């Protein structure tokens, strides 16, 4: 689903990471760890085309990012769910409308019941008509997850999805992603929360990638 060949990205005049060669398969579950500023968010942005690589190539679902038109990039993003660290919403739309946005923008079938079911799945059914600024950090993360998965994405990219959450809520959110993965979605979660990684690995077969010293490595068994 995601194939990187000697991928590198520069930031501030120097390499952030380089020579990344890896393959994320359909239905896989990966964590991406590393210290702050190592390039976890940057790697995710390369995966959904918000940034272009400085070196090497990255292909997503067979399409080389950087060589696709804006419309083609949009079509790729329709097949990817993204949970941002800062949970970007349209603050003037309700939570339900924000969650339905990926379907509305692509003219796919939109059923209100589906939206409500999804909001119930993430525990936000009582907040369907609320505006995003009125939600807590955890609620925003869950709403972002609901929006990311409403289009039944083939890949879910999550950037520190539990950064603002307590442990109980983090477990709940991770359980939702695990459930999604069991339904066939490839999941890549950038996080530095080792406890969360251990929680997930106790339930599914997840690989852990680590960015350290400008290189991406498969993490060892200590995780």
């Amino acid at each position, binding site marked *: 689903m995601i194939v990187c060949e000697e991928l590198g990205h520069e930031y501030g005049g120097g390499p952030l990471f380089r020579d990344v060669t890896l393959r994320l398969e359909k239905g896989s579950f990966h964590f991406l760890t590393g210290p702050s500023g190592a390039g976890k968010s940057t790697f995710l942005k390369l995966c*959904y085309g*918000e940034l272009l690589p400085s070196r090497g190539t990255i292909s997503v679902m067979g399409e080389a990012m950087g060589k696709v038109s*804006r*419309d083609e990039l*949009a*079509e*790729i*993003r*329709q*097949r*990817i769910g*993204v949970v*941002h660290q800062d949970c*970007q*919403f*349209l603050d*003037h*739309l309700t939570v*339900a*409308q924000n969650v*339905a*946005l*990926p*379907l*509305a*923008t*692509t*003219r796919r079938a*939109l059923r*209100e019941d589906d*939206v409500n079911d999804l909001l119930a799945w993430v525990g936000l059914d009582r907040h369907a008509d609320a505006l995003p600024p009125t939600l807590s950090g955890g609620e925003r993360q869950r709403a972002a997850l609901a*929006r990311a998965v409403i*289009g039944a994405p083939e890949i879910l990219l999550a950037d520190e999805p539990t950064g603002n959450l307590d442990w109980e809520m983090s477990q709940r959110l991770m359980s939702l992603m695990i459930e999604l993965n069991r339904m066939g979605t490839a999941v890549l979660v950038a996080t530095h929360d080792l406890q969360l990684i251990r929680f997930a690995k106790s339930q599914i077969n997840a690989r852990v990638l680590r960015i350290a010293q400008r290189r991406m490595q498969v993490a060892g068994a200590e995780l």
Partner: protein
Amino acid sequence: MNADEITGLVVPRRGQSVWLITLSAGAMAFLAVFSLALALGATQLAQSWGAALSQTATIRLSAPPDEMDTQTELVLEVLRTTPGIEAAQVMVPDEQAALLEAWLGPDLPLDALPLPRLIEVTETPEGPDRQGLRLRLAAEAPGAVYDDHTRWRRPLAEAAGRLRALALVSLGLIGGVTGAIIALAASVALASNRQVIGVLRLVGAQDRFIARAFVRRISLRAGLGALAGTALGMAAMAALPQAGGDVHLLAGLGFRGAGWALPLLIPPLAILLAWGAARATAFRVLRRVT
């Protein structure tokens, strides 16, 4: 909740650009009503002035007092036997005095002045052979001058034509300025909603969806503004002094009958203009916004 409803809501309703679009479209529609009235009025004036003076002529007969009646009869005989002349009537002294009163005042003793005699001529639609008629009159009544009003009609027609051209240029300028303002406002709206564009792109929206959402909002606002401006403009036109008395010029500058339907085209045209300007701007800006 449906896709269309959400599409109509993705662009926030607030923002200075929204007011700029509404107000400018309203103001321009208001001005467009007056320019349209001017263009129509100029056309109507040209037609009415032309109609009033065409197919008519005046013969001015100057002769010694003792020959005046004889030469008048000769002129009338020439006219009766000339094809293309429908009627001819000698202007009576009172009518002549009324015409001159505006220029010379009521107290001047017109009887004592050697005034030429005036004969009003009505031509058939085909009209006479004017050159031949002038030659015959010169032979039969040397003091008769046939005036077909050409030298009066031409400057009036030219003035009306220029007035109409001026009004049409004004309409064109109004359209151009409106388009430019809306393009600018659309650019501002897109620039101030980068976060909205970012979210829409994140969820896989293509440029045409984003452009459509902005264009829809901008066109709607322009349409509302133009509707209000047109209504105000039409109300102002209706409040202008009506025809009659000494206000012949003003009388030609209003809308009449079916002409009142013409300003109703302004709001849909404004929407069309806003749609085109906003769409072109949106795609141009979206190409730059990564």
